[in-house]
């Protein structure tokens, strides 16, 4: 094994702006945290403007798939847990009222588009 192969692997996450969630993009092999950040920027964020980057030592990441009891089983019916599981609009219509969605409410109270920073 070479010195290069002995260097640790870091998982890389990018955060597009202050209000977005950091997303996993890939990994780098580097000799230190600082170098991992540098390499991550050069490898994954050469073009897009990025608000923040995280690098995490690979061993620090624990995968749920390694512990089968921790993941949700796919086939269960969870419709009752989703907004799409409710068809209220036709009933509101019978009462001659408009159905509302949370997106409309959010738009209704959003500040005027002045804070378009970055």
């Amino acid at each position: 094994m070479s010195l290069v192969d002995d260097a640790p692997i870091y998982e890389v996450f990018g955060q597009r702006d202050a209000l977005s969630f950091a997303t996993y993009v890939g990994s780098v092999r580097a000799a230190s945290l600082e170098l991992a950040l540098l390499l991550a920027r050069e490898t994954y964020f050469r073009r897009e403007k990025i608000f923040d980057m995280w690098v995490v030592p690979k061993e620090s990441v624990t995968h749920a798939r390694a512990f089968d009891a921790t993941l949700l089983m796919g086939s269960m019916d969870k419709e009752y847990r989703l907004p799409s599981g409710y068809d209220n609009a036709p009933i509101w219509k019978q009462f001659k009222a408009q159905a509302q969605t949370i997106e409309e409410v959010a738009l209704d109270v959003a500040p005027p588009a002045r804070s378009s920073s970055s």
Partner: protein
Amino acid sequence: MDLMHHSKEEFIEQIAAGNKVDTGDWMPDDYRQLLIKQIHMHAISEIMGAYPEKEWVKYAPTIQRKLALNAKIQDEIGHGHMLLRLAEDLSAPLGRGREDLLHDVLDGRVKFHNVFHMSAPSWADAGVIGFLVDGGAIITQAMLLASSYAPYARMLKRIVAEESFHMQFGESVVLALASGTEVQREMLQQAINRWWPAMMFFFGPREMGPQSQRMLEYRIRTMTNEELRQKFIARYVPRIHALGMTLSDHELYQDPDPPHFWHYTDPDWDWFNDMVHHNTGPMSQARLALRRGAQEGLAWARHAALQAHATIDVRAATL
């Protein structure tokens, strides 16, 4: 991030320019205090908000309703935990941790929303909580998506997405009752009568106190109490009337002239204030007793779990 300079004036300028503050960034002490007060109260209210609905899980009329109500309660407890993590990070420099923050409600050191001190005597109350209480909370929380404190704004994205189901669930129960028999419609009417004045109080006094004013200056929040209440009234009065239900507030009417302000009767400010400050509401003590049972009665389980895992880790390390 490190754009934030160590002076209050520059900090306020940065925020006014739309910049966000993150965990670990420098912030003025009073900004931190206001955030802790807001997020701590929000977290505890999510948790206390699960209790009125929990009462109805075993009486829910169908298995679908039972599953849904249970799912909503799980969401609210989850919201409490997400927000508690933020309050923990903010409180750490002050030497206060998670157990302190959870204990505070038992010692009366943190308030929770007035609506969760009220009783929910019928199934219609369970529906009206989703319809009006979640409806009101959604308006407030959607406003907070623009908060200057980025961790709060980000967490609220997740929370608001889940609230979408709460809104549809509450409306579904209310619509079913409104489409039902005279007995069901009367039950719904009674529940609306019970919750309306509590919702008028929910958004806070007409004139905001100095702390809430500070929160506006710091853009922790972006709308006044009255602006939020007006949004709520404008959205819900027409819906309640469309269902053929009435509101017993005789002062309730909308100005025909712009800005079309809605007039309404003041809730009993003193009664509700006493309730939130001294836990004197109809159900305050009963629900705090449940919370105490969970917090203190299950302390042994939390500690046992922590100890068991500590032992396993030590064993793994020595292998």
